[in-house]
């Protein structure tokens, strides 16, 4: 829809803004010896777009790709060699979980849970993160009527970069 709203294709200027936002994280990521190149930043932005598309969502607020990149750059399992691919997989898991919990879990809370699981019991495996942590979270939010303030088992001792 060229003259309307193509929901899956943000205008070029907005996409450039998203890439710049990822690049602006370099100052933080370099503390962990991770350099974000324009190519890597574009890869992350494109991955975000694909993950949104695949899960049937659109983004309107602060970029989740930026938040995930910032949060996970401190992980011992993330390096300059794999950051963009790890973020790509995490984004898929993130939006999937948002759908399955019907948005009842906030972005920041979900990212915190994912980070703790990824660094802890899953030892850097996104597949295990999905199997062990995410499926449980989805079940708890859907069948136990869990509210964010009640949920504790997955976030104890969580850390924050922000």
């Amino acid at each position, binding site marked *: *829809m*060229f*003259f*309307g*709203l*193509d*929901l*899956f294709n*943000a*205008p*070029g*200027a*907005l996409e450039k803004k998203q890439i710049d936002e990822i690049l602006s994280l370099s100052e933080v990521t370099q503390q962990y010896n991770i350099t974000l190149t324009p190519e890597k930043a574009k890869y992350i932005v494109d991955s975000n777009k694909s993950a*949104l598309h695949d899960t*049937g*969502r*659109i*983004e*309107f*607020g*602060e*970029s*989740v790709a930026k938040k995930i990149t910032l949060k996970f750059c401190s992980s011992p399992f993330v390096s300059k060699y794999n950051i963009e691919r790890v973020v790509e997989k995490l984004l898929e898991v993130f*939006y999937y979980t*948002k*759908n399955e919990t019907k*948005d*009842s879990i*906030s*972005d*920041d*809370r979900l990212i915190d849970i994912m980070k703790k699981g990824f660094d802890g019991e899953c030892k850097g495996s996104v597949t295990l993160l999905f199997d062990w942590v995410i499926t449980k979270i989805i079940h708890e939010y859907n069948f136990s009527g869990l509210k964010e303030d009640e949920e504790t088992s997955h976030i104890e001792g969580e850390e924050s970069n922000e």
Partner: protein
Amino acid sequence: MNNEIGFSGLIDKAKLQSNNYFSSLSKQAYDCGLISDGDVERIKIELFLLLGEICKTITEKGTSSIQIDTAEEISESILYTLSLRLKKCPSPENAAKLLQNEKIGVLFEEGQKELSDNLINLRAKWTVLQRKLFKTQSHSFTESAKETMKKFFTDYDYKLSAHKNVVLFDYPVYKEGEKLSGLEYISQKLDCFVSENEFLNNFDSQAVHCLLLLLDGIYGEEAFYLEAPINIYMYVLSCALGLVMCEKDPYELKIEREDYDFIESRLAGQNNKNVLLVLYDALDKLTDILTIDEKTRDYLLFSIRQLASEISLSNGENLKSVFLCRDNILS
């Protein structure tokens, strides 16, 4: 206004779609060079940001994305609201100029104000209608005027789903009109309904009831019109016109065999122009007798054009089902 004369007539109005006005206007304006690539890019960005702003108001706190079906719903509502604002411009060229010079957010706010005002006017119109509603046993007539409209005012959300048809106006008004949606759809239906109701109020309910019972003979069902969604107005109008043609009392709503024969002799096999001339003449006489306002008079004029077209297209074959006559049906 002088500036506006320079580019009038550039946009092909035939290519503008009432139900998709914003997009079709933007495309036409772009094709004519009234808006540039830069304008299109700016408009798209502003639309996207506006969508984001509205999404923020309806999502849980701390959520920065939304499911696509919800977003699509909101984006359709935005485009509908903008379309309504742009349709208010004196010409499509003026609308294109407005699109070029004004921020989307401002146009959207003005569109919402327009929607809100129209909603208030529609409710006022509906309130008056309910007081003056023609008394009939037609279920769809009464149900549409009362329950359907009531449901519309309860369910319609001009802020998030302005484009949505929250109800189906079951009663088939005679003037079909353009394909519209949301508030425009229901306004169009109610406007027609009000004119038809105004006309029907000139007649006695029992006389209309007796006339419509003749439909039983055509459709083979007892009290057919009570449950079937059929247009009452057209049968009453054609009967009244027929009686005026025969110099009979239109309030009687009763066409006798000899009246029908006379009507048939005037209309059967005639071309559209001749049928129209006969009906115009009858309408002139009828409007002198009835109490009707200017708007209803216009509606009657439209109606006889449509009626003339239907009669001439069928080569007079449909006269028996247009001018209901007991003798014809019983025979």
